[in-house]
């Protein structure tokens, strides 16, 4: 039996990825906790990774895999910086509720 026939079509992966991406976006929009917002952003990045890998697999390409590794590396770097910023913030004001940070506005 042909394996290709049984494979899930590319579009499904893309829909999954798009859905995850939207979930991430909505998470950023509606959550107040800085950490959760940050996790939502991570979901967005991982949604992108799914797309990248899916494209690679179905179009028989390789660049996307490299790309997704890069994305993971960068995401890790961002995590470290992001958490550091949040900790610095927490030291001055013991909260990570984003709504409490609005000194600067027009």
């Amino acid at each position, binding site marked *: 039996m042909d394996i290709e026939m049984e494979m899930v079509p590319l579009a499904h992966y*893309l829909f999954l990825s798009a859905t995850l*991406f939207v979930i*991430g*976006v909505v998470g*950023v929009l509606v959550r107040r906790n*800085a950490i959760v*917002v*940050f996790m939502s*952003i991570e979901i*967005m*990045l991982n*949604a*992108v990774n799914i*797309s*990248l890998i*899916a*494209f690679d697999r179905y*179009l028989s*390409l390789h*660049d*996307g895999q*490299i*790309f997704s590794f*890069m*994305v993971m590396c*960068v995401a890790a*770097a*961002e995590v470290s*910086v*992001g958490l*550091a*910023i*949040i900790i*610095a*913030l927490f*030291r*001055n*004001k013991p909260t990570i509720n*984003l709504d409490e*940070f*609005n*000194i*600067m*506005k*027009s």
Partner: protein
Amino acid sequence: MEPITAPAIDLVSLAPVLVLSVFGIMVLVTDLFIGKDKSVLVFISLTGLLMGAISSLAKYNLPVHSFNGAYIVDHLSVFFTFIFCISSALAILVSVDFNKREGIKVGEYYSLILFCTVGMVLLASATDMIMIFLGIEIVSISLYVLAGIRRNDPKSNEAALKYFLLGAFATGFLLYGMTLLYGSTGSTKLVMIASAIRNGGVASEPLLLMGVVLLIIGLGFKVAAVPFHMWAPDVYQGAPTPVTAFMAVGPKAASLAAFYRIFSEAIPQLSPSWEILLCVVSVITMFVGNLGAIMQTNIKRLLAFSSVAHVGYLIIAIIAKNSLSSSALMFYMLTYAFMIFGTFGIVILLGRKGDENLEIENYSGLAYKHPVLALSMTIFLLSLGGLPPLAGFVAKFFVFSAALKEGFLILVIIAVLNSAVSLYYYLKVIVFMYMKDPVKEFDITLSPMTLFVIAISIFGTIQLGIFPDSIIALAQAN
């Protein structure tokens, strides 16, 4: 079995990146072994920037493609590397006295600026989306830290947090856009994408277009184009002033270079569909930037909105995408570097410990106490407003003529109208300096480094306004 040959790695073309990275690490390491006095670090980083700029000339017979077409050394990248090195050097120079005054005693500060410069060079030279992504992230992550470098200042913290969260959010969009571009054309290399589109090798037209829109958002955020600009005023206000100046020039220039490369090299074929989008973005960016600035009372916020407006003009160069517009982009960013560092240099001088004097009314009567400073500020502001014969005018004229050549008459009219409006708020500051009585005593320490930056900037602003030809010739060499 095929013989294994060593891969062709052209490290020479990477020279500025390597030099700057090495010096960045050197600063970090040296910081461990010296005491409280950080002036050695300043010296090392300035040397690094100088060497970086020189090493960018290592390649001749431009353009040189390396790393399988992921990296290019051409006139655009070399010119931009110079802009980055100049702007980073100016940023370090204005930081020295500021940091001493405000008690910022961290050595990482200088290495972060160097690393950020590395990212910018990568951005301007990358011809592969992966590299562009890396460049953007190197720049952004350094900036997140720099914005929050005053750890005990709630404003600085908040700026870092806002910048970080929104930046990461925008990165998500940018990445998704790149992915869709990659998925529909099958390559991450700009040239290959272009050829796939040209030869009808596009897997899915809607995905491609979706990808382009997402790219505009990601890049639009980095250059602070409306409606992705909301972070800019807050972050500009909260970040330490030298960092604000730094952010307003180098990273913006780098993102614009990448913006230009992607749109003119990878997807010029799609221009009918993205032209209209960029036109809309450019127009609302100009309007929001200029109208927003009118109401500001804080000089840093005013400059933030003004820099938003300038992005609006610069996007016009991307829309025009002819040979004139790339050199216009380079020339504009160079002049912009001088104008911005000059302005911020004066903003820094006017501050003192614990009181940065950032309200516009604090500039009242500056002309009577410090006529030369007021005159310099006037020159910078008028140049930002595009008054001839200062550099800002030539730069704007250049961008607008590039667009006119492609027939974007309406767009240019709107831009000229906007630059006329913009003079209004620049003038407001001048009115305060010349025509109002001081509200309080000025207590200005004329620190030599900052004055040096202001002097260089004055020279640049006037020189590039009256004798711009030699620099324009350099920008046009390609």
